[in-house]
């Protein structure tokens, strides 16, 4: 919708939807279907072999056996022969007595919820301002908002590693302002630092998606709210906020989904086991003899939980593209 079609030839119906419809029925029957199948085939094969098959392989390894001699996983592709040894191990780690994975899972949820809500609280006003009030400076603001999108995640983490060193600028500024008495070891395993890092790392994606959605809200609707006598706050609550529900949901999903699989932010900004997330657990089990099968099961469990929001996202974008056409 936002990408505009080239200028229409004179006389052509301006809206591709309504009046031009009858032309479609004149389309030659189906000589051409093979052509489209041929075009789609490489992509379909690629996705089948390198996206669908791999997930089945993960399942086969997770439900498979362990080679006792080499401590390496043995994939079992026949579901009838599956063993649940890995699954019960993972369940034991998560919920059993002395479970070490349970607290990690809980911490992951807390970090992700806190960080994504902070992203929204910081990101919404900025995206809202730029989409609605930036006026002639919209281009400038957009460049500045999009810039972090082009800056690699590692660079953005390095930036905070530099600032948060014990003798770094953050501590020096806080000392100068007499807010702290002694330098704080920010990088020594604080949840606060990790959440800040997650917010800093993922907020550009949220803002970008949010901006794209808010920018499409017709200003006439908001002006209508004003004309009908609503104040600034009530116009926002009654008109703008309901209209931005969909962009907020998509933007949150775009932020939350990768955050759940994050294992590098906390490693760089804390490194302490007390800030481990579920991603660290999975990543640590890859390549560790004897634990790979459990890593496979754990990643599938995470996928299973995230499948609902993922499918919601797919359906929502599909609906949006249908409305656009």
């Amino acid at each position, binding site marked *: 919708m*936002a990408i*505009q079609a*080239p*200028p229409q030839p004179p006389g052509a119906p301006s809206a*591709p939807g309504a009046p*031009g419809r009858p032309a*479609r029925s004149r389309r030659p029957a189906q000589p051409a279907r093979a052509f*489209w199948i041929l075009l789609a*085939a*490489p*992509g*379909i094969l*690629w*996705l089948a072999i*390198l*996206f669908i098959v791999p997930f089945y*392989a*993960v399942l086969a390894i997770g439900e498979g056996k362990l080679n006792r001699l080499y401590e390496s996983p043995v994939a079992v592709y026949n579901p009838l022969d599956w063993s649940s040894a890995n699954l019960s191990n993972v369940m034991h780690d998560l919920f059993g007595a002395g479970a070490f994975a349970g607290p990690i899972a809980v911490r992951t949820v807390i970090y992700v919820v806190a960080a994504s809500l902070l992203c929204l609280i*910081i990101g919404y006003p*900025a995206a*809202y301002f*730029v989409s609605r*009030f930036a006026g*002639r400076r919209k*281009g400038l*603001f*957009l460049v500045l908002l999009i*810039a972090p*999108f*082009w800056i*690699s995640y590692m*660079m*953005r983490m*390095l930036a*905070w590693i*530099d600032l948060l060193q*014990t003798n*770094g*600028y953050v501590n020096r500024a806080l000392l100068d302002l007499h807010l702290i008495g002694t330098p704080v070891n920010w990088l020594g395993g604080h949840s606060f630092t990790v959440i800040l890092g997650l917010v*800093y790392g993922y907020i550009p994606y949220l803002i970008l998606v949010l901006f*794209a959605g808010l920018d*499409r809200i017709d*200003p006439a609707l908001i*002006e209508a709210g*004003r004309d009908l006598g609503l104040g600034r706050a009530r116009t926002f609550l009654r008109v703008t906020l309901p209209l931005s529900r969909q962009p907020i949901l998509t933007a949150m999903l775009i932020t939350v*989904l990768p955050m*759940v*699989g*994050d294992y*590098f932010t906390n490693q760089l900004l804390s490194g302490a086991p007390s800030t481990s997330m579920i*991603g660290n657990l999975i990543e640590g089990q*890859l390549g560790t003899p004897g634990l790979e099968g459990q890593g496979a099961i754990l990643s599938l469990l995470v*996928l299973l939980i*995230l499948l609902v929001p993922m*499918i919601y*996202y797919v359906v929502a*974008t599909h609906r949006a*593209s249908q409305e*656009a*056409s």
Partner: protein
Amino acid sequence: MSSATATPVAASPATATDGSPKIRGWRNPWRRPWFLETFTWLYLVWSLVPIAIAVLFSFNKGKSQATFQGLSMRWYYTDPVNSVWHNPQLHSAVFVTLKLSAYTTLIAVPIGVAFALGINRWHGKIPLSFNFVMILSFVVPELIFGVAMFFVFTQLFSGVGLGTLAEILGLVTWNVSWPAIIVQARLVTIGRQYEEASADLGCTQLQTMRRVMLPLLTPAIFASAILVFSGVIDDFVIVDLLSSNATNTPMSVIIYSTQHGGNGGPALNALATIMLVMSFIVAGAGFLGYRWMTRGQRIDGRQALATIAGAES
């Protein structure tokens, strides 16, 4: 669309405040949103100043990542051991990144574009379900996808093993959704008229594709190529899980593993700055190229910018 409607909004404050001086302050609906503007500026400072400082530290004379001791090119090439130029690991990482980006773009974009065209026109259950799979591949957390890739290349297709080939196969799968999504969105806005006209004038399907559809789709294809290329420069998880040794470890992974291993220093900032410059060059070239390809169309700079960043699909 947004550009056309922005002007009346911007024009309204003058008429409104001039006409009715009674509504001032909070009650005035056309009041300038000072709070939001300040907030946005503070956000931008918070988001960009740390990066600027990190870039500055890449030119640090001393070894510290926390104290600035004067400008030098030490960590780029002067230092005989630890500079990006002289440290073989850092040096090769630059070229590994460029190689992976180039190969991934060259493979993923044609496959994705053909997929988008085929899926969009071939109606039925199979294309519908594979379109669903494609969008799933777009939203699945990268770690989960990376784990699947890791297992498939170490267990099922163990002939591939870890390394450059595994990285390219994984990155193509991960990025094929960009061209597929962007081209499909563009196909929707183009509509069917041009194809039908071309068919009425006696073109075969192949001719229509080559002479009509591909030229119309060129900006979208170009934008997706830019997104894939810069996406691979910044990619971390897939290459982290699929790289095996120094000859196939790109910049992002070197930065992570060195910093995490406790050997951080301004040389990493220098490497990250090189990544940053690469990304900005790609983005700049993408923006200018997109503007040039869409010249004569009603597409303003903001739309071009958003498209290049993947926000308009």
